[in-house]
């Protein structure tokens, strides 16, 4: 079987996504451990344009956070074996010097973490931390930086930013901390913002506030946003395009609209079927995906999803032996599945769509 150009990371035309602001080509992140090599990310490619929001969805261990940490260059040296390319405006970040990445981080790309309490330093005031980040990249006086910090805190909706700037992270509530973290991430006006489960730790009413905030700020700054989450509801709110990951690989990529109205991968079907939904009639039973996510040390051969896939028999054993190529099945819709398009269409129309 010939490996696809996508896996080689060759022609940009066959990678999902448009534009060349951020290009991820055949990214592989492997962690050597005593038990074997953990293949957290294994051949991932996608493109991202300025002003676009990409949602990366998958279960824990699917490699979504590891991908974002690799883009940010946050894997400590010596722990991970990273290959492939991450091009930010044509500048390859994989293998670049730590000093170079350090200059880009914060200025050109920034990240919002899941748990703002552990991501902020408890010993310094919120203002101090924003000022520090701003002054590293901008040659300004403390007063100017402080004014900027207050300005940013106000922008993200923190009341009385002038006095809150001198408070410590523990004096902020969970939602306020997440806002402060967003203020910090945006303080240098980065072009790429990665939000890793930005609302998972928050209550649903606060989550709605933060999602609105991220959307508003993105429109204002026209930055490229990657939002990583396991909650399909969250990506439906924010993302233009969605990448579904499974066991460190891309399973499906399409516009958000297509993922929700015409998904093609059995794993995406499984994800949609296993969530109870408020906007539908209550189903008597949920339809979970059988089994558990695979170990990343012994990733199943062929399609990593085949042990849990109900439709694996339809392909005469190909699922167990051949790794499916990640191919463009219709304009801007990429899929890694052995099912023939007739089978997929039939299963989707008859079995899956009526159940969702």
């Amino acid at each position: 079987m010939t490996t696809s150009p996508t896996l080689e990371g060759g022609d940009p035309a066959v990678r999902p996504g448009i534009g060349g602001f951020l290009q991820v080509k055949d990214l592989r992140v492997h962690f050597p451990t005593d038990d074997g090599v953990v293949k957290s990310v294994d051949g991932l490619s996608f493109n991202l344009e300025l002003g676009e929001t990409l949602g990366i969805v998958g279960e824990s261990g699917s490699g979504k956070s590891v991908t974002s940490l690799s883009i940010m260059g946050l894997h400590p040296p010596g722990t991970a074996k990273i290959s492939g390319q991450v091009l930010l405006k044509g500048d390859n970040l994989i293998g670049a010097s730590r000093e170079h990445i350090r200059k880009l981080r914060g200025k050109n790309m920034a990240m919002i973490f899941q748990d703002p309490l552990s991501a902020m330093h408890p010993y310094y005031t919120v203002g101090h931390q924003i000022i520090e980040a701003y002054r590293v990249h901008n040659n300004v006086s403390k007063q100017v930086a402080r004014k900027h910090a207050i300005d940013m805190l106000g922008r993200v909706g923190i009341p009385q930013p002038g006095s809150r700037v001198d408070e410590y992270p523990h004096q902020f509530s969970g939602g306020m901390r997440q806002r402060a973290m967003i203020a910090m991430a945006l303080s240098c006006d980065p072009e790429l913002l990665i939000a890793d489960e930005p609302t998972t730790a928050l209550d649903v009413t606060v989550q709605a506030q933060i999602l609105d905030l991220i959307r508003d700020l993105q429109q204002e700054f026209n930055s490229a946003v990657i939002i990583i989450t396991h909650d399909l509801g969250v990506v439906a709110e924010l993302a233009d395009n969605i990448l579904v990951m499974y066991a460190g690989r891309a399973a499906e990529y399409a516009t958000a609209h297509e993922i929700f109205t015409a998904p093609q991968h059995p794993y995406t079907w499984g994800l949609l079927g296993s969530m109870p939904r408020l906007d539908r009639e209550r189903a008597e039973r949920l339809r979970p995906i059988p089994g558990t996510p695979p170990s990343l040390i012994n990733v199943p051969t062929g399609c990593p999803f085949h042990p849990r896939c109900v439709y694996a028999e339809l392909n005469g054993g190909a699922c167990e032996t051949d790794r499916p190529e990640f191919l463009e099945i219709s304009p801007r819709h990429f899929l890694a599945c052995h099912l023939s398009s007739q089978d997929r269409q039939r299963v989707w129309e008859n079995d899956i769509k009526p159940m969702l």
Partner: protein
Amino acid sequence: MTSAPTNAASSQSNASGGGEDILVVTDLQKHFPIRRGLLQRKVGAVQAVDGMSFTVRKGETLSLVGESGCGKTTTGRMLTRLLEPTGGTILFEGRDITHISMGKMRPLRRDVQMIFQDPYGSLNPRHTVGTIVGAPFRLQNVKTEHSTKKTVQELLELVGLSPEHYNRYPHEFSGGQRQRIGIARALALKPKLIVADEPVSALDVSIQAQVINLLEDLQDELGLTYVTIAHDLSVVRHMSDRVAVMYLGKMVEIADRTPLYERPMHPYTVALMSAVPIPDTGRRTKRDRIRLEGDVPSPINPPSACRFHTRCWKAKEICSTIEPPLAELAPGHRVACHFPENLIDLPVPAVRADSPAAP
């Protein structure tokens, strides 16, 4: 503290309740003292739960929902008597368990069990699965039909694990499997009531669905009654027969699942529902979401009267002066609000007529 209307409300529910009540909770209260200084003098109290009244019918699933800090976990822990209430009463099968001693509670633990949120923290890492699931038998001196080992292995099969897992340790299992171990342990003594505190929120979506289905199957098979504590409103709708919405230690609304989701009456419930992200891109623009400003106030110094009035878009002066009683505004649908939404034309209940500013 207005105890009169609360009591009135609770007696109402008992009257309309129908079916057998396994649990009757009246005016339940838990204040955690705040102590300061050298003498550890009490300077205030965290009013975690402040006057909750509800009943749980045999065989049903009642869910408690609300934001973090609203007191739902504290309520659950009082129902299982892991915490002692500072006020009110809990009747389990007609027996007052509000203040009974640990020793007297022990036999009752066979009937009331708990499933915990964190499948990593709630299993002792140094014990094998067999020891963990067999512990209830040992502690209660329950003789099993065959050996304890056989019974434990049957339990493991019941929750979808393999009997060979008996000698393994918790770290060898995934999150979903650990949660199944916790469920097996809770089921060991054939309890009547299970309090499940966020049973699926630590699990991945696909595994979440497996565990929800398992809990439903077990309920049908063993006739269990569940009190579920959860914050995910879609999961709650799927699992529950009745839903109670809590805000800052008080119950603001309780109703059967369908009326609550289709016609929520309390503004807080309405706001909660509208905040749930819907996995449908077509709705992104259509939905008019109610955006609650700010955060939940501190339970140390909660707002006066209706505790939601500081964030409520319908609040008028009366909301900060007179506490709205939990009144039955539709059959089986009780709401504590002066200006409820989605009100259908019903004769105004007597309790509401008392309030001076009827709109």
